[in-house]
């Protein structure tokens, strides 16, 4: 894609600033939002928890996984990096899927079984379902890993390696 025209960038910037101002004004002006500071604290809290706690944990886990599976993720030269086979990608992939299922399912797991006075809200056994999904996706990942290994072996045999 060629670089977008300056006027387009300017228009996007102006529109973005306008919408941000509109949202901020609306939030501060809304009669129902009596304590905008509460929103601010929750926003700061979300940033701190996500960027200050969650992502460092993910990066540490990724690095530990790299060390455990013996990948030099930081290859010395880009060409080598591009050519180097990755190990453990299926495990990493499964972890991505498992984390996503947990992020979406955990609130239901935590709230399930409470008597909210409305039995049609959260009617399922969410803890069981969540564990079931983790197990089912793990089995899928194991099958993918197995298929990859078999294909690699065949490839190595064919190329005499």
């Amino acid at each position, binding site marked *: *894609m060629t*670089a*977008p025209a*300056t006027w387009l*960038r*300017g228009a*996007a*910037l102006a*529109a*973005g600033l*306008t*919408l*941000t101002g*509109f*949202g*901020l004004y*609306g*939030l501060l002006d*809304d009669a*129902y*939002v009596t*304590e*905008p500071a*509460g*929103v601010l604290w*929750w*926003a*700061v809290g*979300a940033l701190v928890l*996500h*960027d200050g706690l969650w992502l*460092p944990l*993910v*990066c540490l886990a990724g*690095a530990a996984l*790299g060390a455990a599976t013996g990948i030099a993720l*930081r290859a010395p030269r880009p060409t080598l*990096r*591009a*050519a180097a086979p*990755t190990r453990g*990608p299926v495990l*990493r*992939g499964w972890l*991505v*899927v498992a*984390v*996503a*299922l947990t992020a*979406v399912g955990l*609130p*239901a797991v935590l709230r399930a079984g409470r008597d909210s*006075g*409305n039995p049609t*809200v959260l*009617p*399922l056994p*969410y803890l069981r379902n969540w564990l*079931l*999904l983790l197990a089912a996706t793990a089995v899928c990942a194991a099958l993918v890993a197995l298929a990859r290994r078999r294909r690699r072996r065949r490839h190595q045999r064919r190329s005499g390696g």
Partner: protein
Amino acid sequence: MDSKPPGARRRLDLRLDRPLPPPPGFLRRGPFRDGAFTSALHEPRTAVVLGRWLGAALLVCFLTGLTSHFLQDPPHWLAPHLPSRPVNGYRITQGLHVISGIAAIPLTGAKLWTVYPRLFDWPPARSVLHALERLGIAVLVAAVLLELCTGLLNTLQWYPWPFPFRQTHFWLAWLAVGGLLIHLAVKAPLIARHWRGRQAPAPAGRRGFLTAVGAAVGAVTLTTAGQTVPWLRAVDLLAPRRPGPGAGGLPVNRTAAQAGTVTVPADWRLVVDGPRPFRIGLAELRQLPQHEAVLPIACVEGWSVSARWGGVRVADLLARAGAPPGSAVRITSLETEGPYRVSELPAPYAADPLTLLALRVDGEELSADHGFPARIIAPNRPGVLQTKWVARIEVLG
């Protein structure tokens, strides 16, 4: 920035663009060090690919959210023009709203992980303008995180925060979209450079990572979308609702016990207010011409299910009350309190032959939870406006 006209740029050079002195080097520790992040995937092309997916999800989420807002709370100039068709319109837009919002959860996680090292750029602010841009990113990220968090918990009816959900969710959406546009404007050259992946050989693991993110989006979608997509119901394992067939499988947002309408006054008679006002009891309502319509209950929380409703056409009641054509209607419930005790039915809905004062659902008399003795059911409408336990129908000017 080169998006400014020349005059403004000269002024900005004097103020916002002036380089700031870098902080002392000994502060450059931990994640600020060069090479603190080991993965090869913290690179622009991965960010651009994920950004495209996330941008599409957020755009769908924003537009469907606006649709829901205007259907639920229309400005007075818009109300008379709201369409009562297509019948499943709101079911589809609000279903998409929650589906795209849930899909955005893994996409946001992956995108933020990819660009995480940029948080520790050194120096942290090259100029005032750069500091402002980074502040804009903070607003964008915080708004998106809060939107996803409040939206997800709202589908569970869980409100642990000290602010009202609906208004905050609405205003934060503007902050998120505004922040996104600013972000796109600032990053446009970088995005354009990496729009097609021809710049450099792909780092090992990129394809695997993107495949994993795609699989994660698929997994969370498949296991939650069944609350609105009937053929996905069997794998609806994590969704907060499980609509089923028949009146018994129809979820409710507010039970009769919660609304205080378990027992209806023995002398209940519907009041229809208009030029020729009248009161009518349940037995007489059953004597009027009965109609059936297959209409969805589509909730703002993202679940929906169709049912076969039976009862009296609202248009027939209005004609009997002598309402002029094109009248809007106000519906009042037996509930003593609650934000949806009173709803307005704009003229196109009131005139629609599918809009019923329903007395039955799927062949059975309405249960207390579904609005006994009578409820409103209209096409293309948010569920909270399908007023239950109707006490009064009033023709508006």
